[in-house]
């Protein structure tokens, strides 16, 4: 069953990738968003604000039961009726019963993602009640009979001509596709609906416990009409919207509009407490507080942080996968990174299974989340759950369990691979075409061949010339540096020797375990972590260095977490984490080398080599390193030119670009190549062998003259 589902999903992905108008729009939106957001936060300390919000939301989580009681008590005292709905069905039943009891024929709604979540419109329709969406975007997709593709801008996937067509069908006249005109049509058409409706339904952005108030953050003004004109108002509120006080809500207001649309504040913020006057009587106010999986989420040790979400939509805005395929494919009811997680809890893990695999793990979402949710980590946990439930396929599971856990076997296979590949490579270091059913792998990028001799064999043969020795460090090669780019290790050796550091290669090191972990095989990852902790600490190095940020992240973060339950290994893992550095950071922060002693080789024209720097996801957003390599390159006499979107993912993602979603990976790579081309450089530098494979392969395939190089290689060259 999961196989058919996967095939269906890949088909959806392909269709979306081929909708170039949508992709263009989402890319342009992503760019405009980042600019607007930057301006909006110019005078604020985003890190501090999001730390505060995360802390506040965590307090809410712990005391949610009492806050809920307090909210209900206060809201009731102000004249509201409060109903606790355990799931979608209960919420829908309550609202449809209420409508029937009051002979409601028409309902006007302002935007509510919760109502999408529980499919309220369908339930109302089945009860013979007409529901009219009044948010412009929601109305458009209601007319089109679709679902939102973005949490803040539900109709972002539609274009003016399509909207004109829908509106024309509605008014019975030909409406022009002028946007101002279309907005006027909506104003006119919907105005009547507010006046006719017997019930208004809204969502809420906050439910304030100490006063029973709820808050609505909006721009269009429809929510104010929906909550004013009809005699009955139903506010549908997810349990996670609880905050203790008005001040807590105001804190969120400082961040929410800025992070959602780059506005300092929305046109309207509305605070409603209790049943306010409506004509000669008081309004009938019903608050439906919805659980529908939220309590389960609160109980989940690994995923509960997702309840901090304030629904700003930013995690989708910056996501390269979302930008490539849109929210209908990369989301369910909720969209983007948070959408994946909520889908797993509100709709079931099977509904989220394809989505968790479509995330490339670039952590762009994590860097903009105003609630400081480690979305990527949670998605990873869910991926492991999916694999546990569905298995990962025999081939992969054999590779991880039987081969990679057995280091000798794994390395023996890689060595024979190096010999066996001759017929395809013809002895060259790149593979441009693979035969038969592998051919699709080289359709859009060439692949590097396995090196004739791995780093582990080359290292012991090196002469180390060290003047005054400062440190002795262990090199963690990582598979790609060990077997594909052994020259990275040799370059590192050369540069470090120059600065008085001895380097050795612990023989018993194995793969860092990330491929297994990211494919959901936690046990294999744990075994690798044990092997590496022992191998790397055995000879008591001062530091452990890597040329691969994914390995760095694995040693710094994942090993510690993976071995947390094993006292004999945990302390060692922590020690290893504390002495592990990627080479650029080590040179810059620890050695504080005076790199200007290195002499730069000029480019072909005699001027300094023009280099642009590509930030690897795991280095910038995993290890927080991005200034150091730029500084090193600059100080060593290179001219560093910034490209656009330097820190956007290149689309590699390990097995993601081979077997997971090569088509999305290709689309993301195309964006990167475009940015490199426009920077007008001779060389693109980076600190990751994975990115080198992807970007180098893409440039080679496109016949581009731009060279791909690791920072350490460029530094080593200046020592010639």
């Amino acid at each position, binding site marked *: 069953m999961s196989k058919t589902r996967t095939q269906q999903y890949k088909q959806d992905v392909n269709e979306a990738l081929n909708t170039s108008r949508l992709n263009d729009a989402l890319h342009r939106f992503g760019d405009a968003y980042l600019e607007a957001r930057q301006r909006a936060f110019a005078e604020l300390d985003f890190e501090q604000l999001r730390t505060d919000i995360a802390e506040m939301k965590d307090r809410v989580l712990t005391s949610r039961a009492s806050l809920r009681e307090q909210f209900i008590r206060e809201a009731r005292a102000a004249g509201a009726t409060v109903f606790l709905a355990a799931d979608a069905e209960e919420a829908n039943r309550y609202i449809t019963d209420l409508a029937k009891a009051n002979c409601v024929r028409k309902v006007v709604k302002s935007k509510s993602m919760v109502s999408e979540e529980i499919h309220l419109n369908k339930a109302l329709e089945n009860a013979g009640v007409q529901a009219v969406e009044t948010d*412009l975007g929601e109305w458009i997709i209601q007319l089109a009979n679709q679902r939102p593709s973005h949490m803040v801008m539900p109709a972002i996937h539609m274009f003016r001509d399509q909207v004109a067509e829908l509106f024309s069908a509605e008014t019975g006249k030909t409406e022009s596709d002028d946007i101002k005109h279309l907005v006027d049509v909506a104003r006119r058409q919907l105005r009547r609906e507010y006046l006719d409706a017997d019930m208004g339904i809204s969502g809420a952005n906050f439910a304030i416990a100490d006063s029973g*108030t709820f808050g609505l953050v909006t721009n269009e003004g*429809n929510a*104010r*009409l929906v909550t004013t004109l009809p005699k009955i108002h139903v506010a549908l509120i997810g349990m996670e919207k609880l905050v203790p006080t008005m001040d807590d809500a105001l804190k969120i207001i400082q961040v929410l509009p800025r992070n959602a649309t780059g506005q300092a*504040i929305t046109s309207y913020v*509305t605070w409603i407490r209790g049943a*306010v006057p409506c004509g000669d009587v008081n309004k009938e106010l019903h608050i439906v507080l919805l659980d529908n999986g939220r309590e389960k989420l609160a109980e989940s040790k690994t995923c509960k942080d997702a309840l901090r979400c304030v629904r700003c939509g930013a995690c989708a805005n910056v996501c390269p996968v979302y930008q490539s395929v849109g929210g209908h494919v990369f989301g369910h009811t909720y969209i983007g990174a948070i959408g994946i997680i909520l889908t797993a809890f509100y709709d079931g893990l099977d509904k989220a299974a394809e989505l968790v695999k479509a995330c490339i793990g670039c952590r762009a979402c994590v860097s903009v989340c105003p609630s400081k949710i480690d979305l990527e980590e949670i998605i990873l946990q869910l991926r492991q759950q999916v694999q546990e439930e569905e298995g990962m396929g025999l081939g992969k599971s054999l590779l991880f369990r039987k081969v990679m856990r057995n280091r000798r076997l794994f390395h023996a296979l890689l060595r024979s691979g190096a010999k066996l590949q001759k017929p395809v490579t013809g002895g060259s270091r790149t593979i441009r075409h693979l035969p038969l059913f592998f051919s699709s792998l080289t359709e859009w990028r060439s692949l590097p061949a396995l090196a004739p001799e791995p780093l582990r064999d080359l290292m012991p043969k090196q002469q180390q010339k060290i003047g005054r020795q400062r440190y002795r460090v262990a090199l963690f090669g990582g598979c790609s540096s060990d077997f594909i780019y052994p020259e990275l290790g040799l370059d590192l050796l050369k540069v470090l020797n120059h600065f008085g550091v001895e380097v050795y290669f612990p023989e018993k090191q194995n793969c860092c375990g990330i491929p297994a972990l990211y494919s959901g095989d936690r046990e294999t990852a744990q075994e690798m972590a044990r092997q590496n902790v022992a191998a790397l600490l055995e000879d008591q190095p001062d530091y452990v260095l890597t040329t691969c940020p994914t390995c760095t992240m694995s040693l710094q973060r994942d090993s510690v977490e993976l071995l947390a339950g094993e006292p004999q290994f945990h302390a060692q893992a922590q020690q290893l984490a504390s002495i592990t550095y990627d080479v650029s950071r080590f040179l810059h922060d620890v050695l504080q080398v005076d790199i200007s002693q290195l002499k730069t080789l000029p480019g072909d024209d005699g001027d300094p080599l023009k280099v642009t720097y590509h930030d690897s996801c795991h280095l910038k957003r995993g290890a927080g390193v991005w200034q150091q390599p730029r500084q090193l390159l600059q100080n060593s006499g290179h001219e560093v030119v910034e490209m656009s979107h330097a820190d956007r993912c290149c689309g590699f993602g390990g097995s993601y670009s081979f077997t997971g979603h090569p088509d999305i990976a290709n689309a993301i790579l195309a964006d990167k190549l475009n940015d490199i081309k426009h920077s007008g450089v001779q060389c693109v530098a980076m600190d990751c062998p994975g990115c080198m494979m992807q970007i180098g392969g893409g440039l080679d395939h496109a016949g581009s003259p731009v060279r791909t190089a690791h920072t350490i290689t460029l530094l080593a060259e200046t020592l010639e």
Partner: protein
Amino acid sequence: MKSRNRINLFQQAAESAGAVVYHCQDVNDAAAYIAEHAGGALLYAPNDSLEQLGFSPALSRSEVSLLEMTSRLDAADAVAGLTGSNYGLAETGTVVIDSTAELVRLASTLPERHFVVLDPQAILLGQQEAGQALRDLQHQQPADYLSYITGPSRTADIERVLTIGVHGPCELYILLLSAVAQPEKGVSS
């Protein structure tokens, strides 16, 4: 921050959010300004402070035509609305209006133009100060409906093109007139 600076900051922020800010000399000046810009029937949502300032007589003396209402839904015929306000927030150019009285809500949601009278002395700095202000406004009545309004109604739902005036007022006029707000009393209708 000096009150003059606060007023300037408020004006700048409100204008950049698309509002028009007008400094009134007195209530007659305000009424004349409204008459000039209303463009049709005005729905006046009076409160104690507006009445003390003499808005009712000033409006009747002016050229403006006041909306005659027989039922609440007649409010839909108003072209312009006039309300008071309780606070301004300088950093965002926001007016804070106790909108519990239904007439205030009708006058500030349905018409195309919304005129808001704000006492420049009631301009606070930003969200930090707003918390106390909102708490002061709440609980004066059994239930309440408080509004922040910043600029006119807007949408970017079609191709992300910013368009003004989708459901709420297309034009927001903030009339600065001293000694209007009586936050401690709130708005009573």
